């Protein structure tokens, strides 16, 4: 108790000393973890040389350089990757421009990261893949522009999202877990084209929602709803990730009950 000569006035350690030490330790550990994570996720600079208009033939070459080791020289597929014949340009644009492909490593599912190829390069590969067999094309601009969507359509989009998407992606688009390491990603701040392409092509384990299931204007309404979620803050303030009872319960167990226990300890302790 009397170890610190400098605190000779009381001879006691400050009551918040252990809390401060714990906080410093946590911040240091969290900061180190974040720093390591940032380095690991750093993406190589995209190649700007090919920024000019690229042809289907350039696409074939880019395909063979970046994709063929898993998907086969002629997109016929190997045991490491599915065939790309008939997946269409929409699938290529989604997978390449969200950084999921080329895949960093084989795993339960491809992870989103910074795109490894430029939009022009991706489009060239898409054009080549689309030339192999007919498949869904990249969406037309009119189905991505949500500026003219009425409030009525917005409500329809929300209903369609709840029926078709929310069971995996969470009603607030916060994402959720699937089986064996797979998960439905969070849908905050996703480009309209990528949302549309995901519904159209059903990347990885996501089901396909073709135009007979969800019509293009309905897809646009869903995009509008997701962008509405991005732009409108949670009315309750701090939403704890919109994960529902899991994060809210954890918060109350730790901070709510923790606070009650701390007050109880203070109430019954002997004052110095």
């Amino acid at each position, binding site marked *: 108790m009397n170890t610190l000569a400098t605190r000779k006035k*009381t001879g006691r350690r400050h009551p918040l000393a252990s809390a401060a030490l714990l906080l410093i330790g946590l911040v240091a550990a969290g900061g180190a973890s974040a720093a390591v994570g940032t380095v690991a996720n750093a993406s190589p600079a995209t190649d700007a040389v090919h920024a000019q208009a690229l042809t289907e033939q350039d696409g074939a070459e880019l395909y063979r350089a970046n994709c063929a080791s898993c998907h086969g020289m002629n997109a016929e597929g190997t045991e490491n990757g599915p065939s790309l014949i008939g997946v269409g340009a929409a699938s290529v644009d989604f997978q390449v421009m969200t950084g999921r492909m080329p895949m960093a490593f084989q795993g339960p599912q491809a992870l989103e990261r910074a795109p490894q190829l430029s939009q022009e390069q991706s489009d060239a590969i898409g054009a080549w893949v689309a030339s192999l067999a007919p498949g869904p094309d990249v969406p037309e601009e009119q189905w991505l522009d949500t500026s003219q969507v009425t409030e009525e359509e917005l409500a329809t989009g929300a*209903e*369609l999202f709840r*029926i*078709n998407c929310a*069971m*995996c992606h969470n009603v607030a688009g916060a994402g*959720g877990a*699937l*089986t064996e390491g*797979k998960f*439905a990603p969070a849908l905050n701040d996703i480009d309209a084209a990528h949302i549309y392409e995901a519904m159209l092509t*059903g990347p*990885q*384990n*996501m*089901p*396909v*929602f*073709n135009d*007979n*299931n969800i019509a293009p204007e309905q897809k646009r309404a869903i995009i509008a709803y997701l962008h509405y979620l991005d732009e*409108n*803050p949670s*009315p*309750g*303030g701090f939403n704890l990730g919109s994960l529902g009872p899991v994060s809210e319960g954890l918060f109350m167990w730790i901070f709510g009950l923790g606070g009650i226990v701390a007050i109880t300890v*203070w*109430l019954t302790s*002997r*004052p*110095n």
Partner: protein
Amino acid sequence: MSADDQSAPREPSVDDHSVVVFDRGAAIEQSDAFENPGLPPHRPRQTDLHPHKERRAERQVVGWFLASMLGSVLAIVAYIAVPIEHGNMTSVRLNNLFLGLAIALALLGIGIGGMHWARQLMSSHEVVEERHLSRGSVPSRERAVEIFRLGDEESGFTRRSLIRNTLIGAVALVPLPAVVLFRDLAPAQDAVQAISHTMWEPGMRLALDPSGAPIKAADVTIGSAFHVIPEELAEIGHGEGYLDQKALAAVLLVRVPTERLKEAPGREGWSYDGIVAYSKICTHVGCPVALYEQQTHHLLCPCHQSTFDVTEHAKVIFGPAKRPLPQLPITVDDEGYLIAQRDFTEPIGPSYFERLHNVDPEHIPASGAETETRA
């Protein structure tokens, strides 16, 4: 111990079968009475020792009470300054936030100030209060008996047996209305009956949820998942039991490559070209099972992670569910639209004992599941 062993040696017995010999060697009477440790010595607080700390504690208590006053005033100011504007969610949030913080300060200021006062400034000397005996004194016990006897005598509780017995009868009947009233809270209909029949009828078209647009078999491409309701359900209003019927009839429709589809014997005609329809209501506790993984063809329930394999008559491959999802037999009509062949052949939804007795005679168990045949 050795001394005790000598003082009470084991007596050899003539007949060991008839005489029980007690070894008293270890029988030391030990007092297990708890010794009163007494109170720890009184330790004066810092505020008892240093007058300037006492004054500081006094100022702190005053500070908390003043903070409470400030909180009360701030609550009124916040209510007026940050009003709730109709249709503006941000104003609701700010109003709640400032009002809550100010009222919390007002209440906690009184509580914390009072506790601080008691802990730091009020007398800190330990006081012992002995427990009083729970048994009353002899005269008071006799007096109590006397009161009871007198009461009985004056009221005639024992003597006037008719009054007494009717009183007991009246008290006994009082809870009966409660029994009848609460019993009526139980479902009016037999629960098994309620989940045995859905809206699906022979020939009814499968339609999109929520629009009610019928689905053509050609629309269901491999890898798609369709959330399906009966076509006629879309015409029912919310006031006419829409949600009740939807909760029974909701179906998930997917197409599996025909070579991967393994159908149970007797159910071969229940799919159409790899298109299968299963009830969306989990057989565990009735959550909507709709998390469909199109590559593995697994259906996952979000509540308790029950996993069903769509390629094999939705059999359970993981989790607490005990039965496969009920399958809706489907086919196509002349125009190419998907239609139901008939209603489900078993009650949809959660498993419980009674439902085993209410399976359709034409029901074909998916995989000879023991839970079904046990009925």
